[in-house]
């Protein structure tokens, strides 16, 4: 089932023609835009938008939390904005939008990344796991349980990113000491200052030997 997703297609060539057509169209529109007047405004309002909507998007296949998506997205859409604004998977948070806080951390093909600093199209064919995909049904992931037990959060906003990062931290083998955890979790900022509790949660899961 996951096989298809591990073999990314290369849609670039597929839509290159469409792109060229669009670029031609937009030059026309640009020229038109230089000519003010009600006719052009009407054209711009209706035509421009429809043309743009049709041509500015590219096809995208993603597996998100085990569910397959076939999408059309603008290339400039980040993975984060795709998740939050189009797919309503709002568990992944926007804290800075510049890769400076870690609130948007998700796993792509099992690796933790900042979803705000990657374009959705760059992840075509990949397998994305967000906080919504971590629990198995009603059964929480051990890391989620440990965060609750150790109070590894207050406001909860950085929490999904912390948890995704924490799971990866153990999987990567970087949770062998308090100091190592702190260093390898430093890409996830918690302004409420729950850090010691988060470290305690990670240590418990790591020492508990549960599969993460």
């Amino acid at each position, binding site marked *: 089932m996951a096989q298809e997703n591990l073999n*990314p297609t290369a849609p670039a060539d597929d839509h290159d023609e469409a792109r060229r057509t669009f670029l031609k169209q937009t030059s026309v529109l640009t020229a038109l835009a230089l000519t003010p007047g009600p006719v052009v405004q009407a054209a711009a309002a209706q035509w421009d938008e429809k043309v743009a909507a049709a041509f500015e998007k590219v096809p995208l296949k993603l597996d998100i939390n085990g569910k397959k998506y076939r999408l059309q997205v603008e290339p400039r859409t980040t993975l984060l904005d795709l998740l939050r604004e189009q797919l309503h998977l709002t568990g992944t948070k926007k804290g800075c939008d510049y890769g400076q806080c870690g609130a948007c951390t998700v796993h792509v093909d099992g690796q933790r990344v900042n979803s705000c600093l990657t374009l959705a199209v760059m992840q*075509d064919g990949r397998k994305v796991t967000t906080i919504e995909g971590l629990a198995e049904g009603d059964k929480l992931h051990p890391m989620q349980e440990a965060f609750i037990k150790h109070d590894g959060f207050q406001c909860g906003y950085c929490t999904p990113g912390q948890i995704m990062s924490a799971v990866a931290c153990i999987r990567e083998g970087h949770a062998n000491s308090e100091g190592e955890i702190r260093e390898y979790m430093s890409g996830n900022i918690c302004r409420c200052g729950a850090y010691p509790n988060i470290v305690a949660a990670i240590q418990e899961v790591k020492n508990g030997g549960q599969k993460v």
Partner: protein
Amino acid sequence: MNQFQYVRPTKQKAAIEALARDANAQFIAGGTNLLDLMKRGVMQPQKLVDINRLPLNKIERMDGGIRIGALALNSAVAEDQLVQQQLPLLAQALNAGASAQLRNMATVGGNMLQRTRCHYFYDTALPCNKREPGSGCGALEGINRMHAIFGFSDKCIAVHPSDMSVALAALDATVLVSGPKGERRIAFLDFHRLPGDTPQKDTNLEQGELVVAVEVPENAFPKNVHYLKVRERASYAFALVSVAAALQLDGNTIKAARLAMGGVAHKPWRLTEAEAALVGKPATEETFRQAAAVAMQGAKAFKHNAYKLKLAPNSIVQALKNAAGLA
């Protein structure tokens, strides 16, 4: 962020051609710096050529050294056994950079090609000759506590932000590039440039050239190395000053040394004269102090970064102490 054309070639030749067709095109690899800059309107490419599916991520032995593919992820290089054994300085420098997530995204080529983090470069409402030639250097008379003490010009006093590049500069790496005119090699020390009158150019890459790999020659520094990064918090911050130090010791005598600094110039700042001052001397704090003094010759500070005149030599001493096992 502006709209742009997006293409994702799977072959190197196609990628280079895709870029060559368009003057305002950019390669995108990890995207961790380019997208950041695009979101703020600092860079507005009309076309992105996604090179992530090119087969350029191998880390392998080659004749006389190790070749690291340009698309090897920072985390993959830092965790690579060969790198850890033979280039521990590089592994340390990589792990000092950014965060675990960013290291999972950023590539070797992209890391080298990072733009400066100068505040004025980042804010399109402020002057910056690097972003907008002729608009002036905002930092020169502005807030310049992060800025250069070596190699700056009156057009630009920004520093290069990469940690990895400081280690590669110390280790005499070579950059393999490929472009419309074919392949060529650029010595790492010639890869980045000083700002002079054209700070908009960070490197000596030519239009359309793609970084393919970095080659690090065999060296005598499998141990006694240290990458010291002094920053304003304990992790996940750019360097105030960083030092890549490597020593080859014969007993207590220094047989060979490599030293480079980050956070002090528009490019990774190799300290060959200081290296020479170390060779043949005993590995003592006193020797290191003398070398640091050599390293600092010609340094000049601005209003807010005079502390670097003291921090930089102190950091050199500390890095060498750590490398020599004196700390």
